[in-house]
């Protein structure tokens, strides 16, 4: 049997035998070279309570070249692409060493959720959200954990449903720099980080031709109503969420 296959089989078995780490690795088809890893979101983070699945591809040159990993579960995190799940982590690139294993790499991903590196982002927009308003970022991350990672609201902090509270949460750290949006030409830096003007304008026409409030912009953030993802979200859904 070739050395790569033997090593991967052993790594999978080791992971199964180790109950303390909470990391699991499973085959998704009949190949040991395409796997699905999962781990619980770390405690005291917006990811707590969620289960995060990772697509794992073992390249031909493993363990000399890094394993390929990306999140299958959508994650709201500066170092993870909110669209593709691609991960920005040094050990998955130039800092890989054959000493690392599937388990240790998944544990590193788990720690990445604890300690975002906004200065080396995979998703620039999420990173900007993180640096401009950590509190608002955490709410969105928590919401995504509930919606996509199966986290229950009772485990983490419940997301702010009250638009009034929402407004305060956002307005506080921003010191009022983000005023209501009055039309496609009037815009603020923060809101542009998440939504293009035309999208905001589009949404604001959809509901009532009134400018969107901070709370409403935040709803769009949570829905990830931007970029190519816009096509995946029906207008009805947007309106329904906005008018809640």
């Amino acid at each position, binding site marked *: 049997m*070739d*050395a790569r296959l*033997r*090593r991967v089989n*052993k*790594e999978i078995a*080791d992971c199964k035998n180790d109950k303390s780490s909470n990391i699991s690795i499973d085959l998704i088809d009949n190949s040991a070279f395409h796997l699905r890893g999962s781990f619980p979101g770390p405690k005291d983070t917006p990811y707590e309570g969620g289960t995060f699945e990772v697509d794992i591809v073992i390249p031909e040159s493993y*363990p*000399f070249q890094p394993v390929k990993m990306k999140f299958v579960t959508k994650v709201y995190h500066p170092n993870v692409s909110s669209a593709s799940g691609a991960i920005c982590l040094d050990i998955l690139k130039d*800092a*890989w*060493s*054959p*000493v690392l*294993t599937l388990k*240790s790499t998944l544990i590193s991903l788990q720690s990445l959720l604890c300690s975002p590196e906004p200065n080396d982002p995979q998703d620039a927009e999420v990173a900007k959200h993180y640096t401009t308003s950590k509190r608002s970022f955490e709410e969105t991350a928590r919401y995504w954990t509930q919606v996509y990672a199966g986290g229950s609201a009772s485990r983490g902090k419940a997301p702010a449903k009250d638009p009034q509270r929402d407004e305060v949460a956002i307005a506080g750290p921003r010191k009022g720099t983000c005023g209501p949006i009055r039309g496609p030409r009037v815009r603020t830096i923060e809101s542009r980080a998440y939504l293009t003007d035309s999208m905001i304008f589009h949404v604001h026409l959809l509901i009532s031709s009134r400018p969107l409030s901070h709370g409403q912009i935040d709803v769009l953030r949570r829905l990830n109503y931007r970029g190519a993802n816009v096509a995946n979200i029906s207008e009805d859904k947007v309106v329904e969420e906005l008018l809640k």
Partner: protein
Amino acid sequence: MPTSDRFEGAKPPSPPRLKSTDLPKDMDGQAVEPEPFLSGHPILPEDMDIADLTQAQLYEMNQRLLEESMESERPLISPPEATSVLRNEYSNSPDFLAQIETLINRGYNIIIRAKGDGDCFYRALAFAYLDRLMRFTGHSNDRLAATTDMLAKAGFDECVYDQPYEMLQSLAQLRASRTNAREELWQSFTDPATSNYIVMYMRLLTSAQMRIDVQFADFLFDPESQMQTSVDDFCRRFVEPLGKEADHVQVAALAQALDVHVKVAYLDGHAADGQVNFVDFSENASHGGDPLLLLYRPGHYDILQKSA
């Protein structure tokens, strides 16, 4: 033992050329031809600064480095050659030529080249080590058997090192009395599937020695920033990954880990009288017998042997 004529049919394809369109033009609009380096070697001599080079020389250096990086057809370990072949590479450099003569005159007639892929030190030392184990039946494998304990102690996962260890052990069982034993050793070292695992094991041993032996901590510098760095950081970035070149400190650590006397001949063109410096590592190693010989040229290690 393989003979060199077996390999003559397998000449590597010619490497690509850099575009020369960006080179400075003279008054007539003709591209200036790059002048060859005096030393005949692409590695920048220590007494020169890269800023002092002309654009043509930089082009030349880039081209040589590119050619070196394209030597994918060259075996990971080449069949033995006469040390005199090195003369061809240094025909413009009297200091190097004088040192080559010194080596030949002192009986160092054979060179076994390791591919210049960043792993040359580890591959060359492992080959020299196994080659000697094979030929001198007096040496035992005890030290090798003890190395797994060292790796466990350094905190490596068993699944990381058990297979490389098995491969190394099976080669360590080879005895020269067996027909084709040396051919088998050479074949294993030219097959990346085995060879790279052997290199990996050597790297793990080097890292384990540095992690366990506190005396190394003071000598670990980031080769890029020249700043002192932690043992863990140094090992993770500059020892364990394949393709990271070995410096003096890695050589010292591996010689200690394997408990072998390693002697490195420096062919660096530094002495005008042709004198060659030899540097010993683990001179008092308990593995008796002749030291393992390596030939160092700036940025590269090969195996050196005295003719039988």
